[in-house]
């Protein structure tokens, strides 16, 4: 599926990076702890998180992730959006919680991918 499909499946709103929404998504990683993402994620495309600070964008950047989906209605601020735009990372936000967001994507075939 594409980032655009992810947006539809989890009823999210695209915040920035509209021009990249046709990129392919196969895997995702969900966590509010960036250290865990850095420790366990490998080649995942989408970061699903309820944490909302610039380190989320940095973490996605270090791992070459192409999209961050904020859950629980969290909204990134202007600085975070600027960071994401510079790096070509798509930001989206949904009112759904973490469990439901991951579950809906899993149901449609997104997987956790390889760890380590």
């Amino acid at each position: 599926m594409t980032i655009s499909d992810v947006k539809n499946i989890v009823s999210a709103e695209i915040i920035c990076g509209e021009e990249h929404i046709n990129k392919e998504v196969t895997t995702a990683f969900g966590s509010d702890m960036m250290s865990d993402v850095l420790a366990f994620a490998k080649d995942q495309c989408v970061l699903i998180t309820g944490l909302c600070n610039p380190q989320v964008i940095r973490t996605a950047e270090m791992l070459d992730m192409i999209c961050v989906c904020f859950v629980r209605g969290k909204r990134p601020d202007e600085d975070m959006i600027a960071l994401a735009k510079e790096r070509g990372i798509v930001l989206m936000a949904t009112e759904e919680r973490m469990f439901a967001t991951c579950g809906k994507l899993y149901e449609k075939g997104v997987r956790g991918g390889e760890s380590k």
Partner: protein
Amino acid sequence: MSMTMKLHYDVSGDDFTRAGEASGKVKAKLRQLGIDPTAVRRVAIALYEGEINLVIHAGGGEIDVEISPEEITMVLTDQGPGIADVEKAMTEGFSTASENIRSLGFGAGMGLPNMKKYTDQMKIDTKLGEGTTIYMTVKL
């Protein structure tokens, strides 16, 4: 290009939102040099964890990176409190980070273990009350 390239960054200790800026710049530079993406990512993750530690545990510090055709070396230096028990600090899950740091997404005690995991060599020199220097190498 000369055979080795040196990069230097000062990391401010009082702005968590900017932590990771240096690591991001190093990553962009390595990419631009056409270095193997897996090596770039290993450097980026290890350096980023180290940079975060400079900010949350040491009140800031300095980062020096040297890029040669054979390897990338990273040196992180600070004049922070030092690490009392290095072996303990290297244990997955060990952290002295405050609840506030945890609420920012760090302080899971995975930083130093991650740095070791993603690099080929890692060495910690530390003295209580004087500071810490961490050396890391990723072979190309």
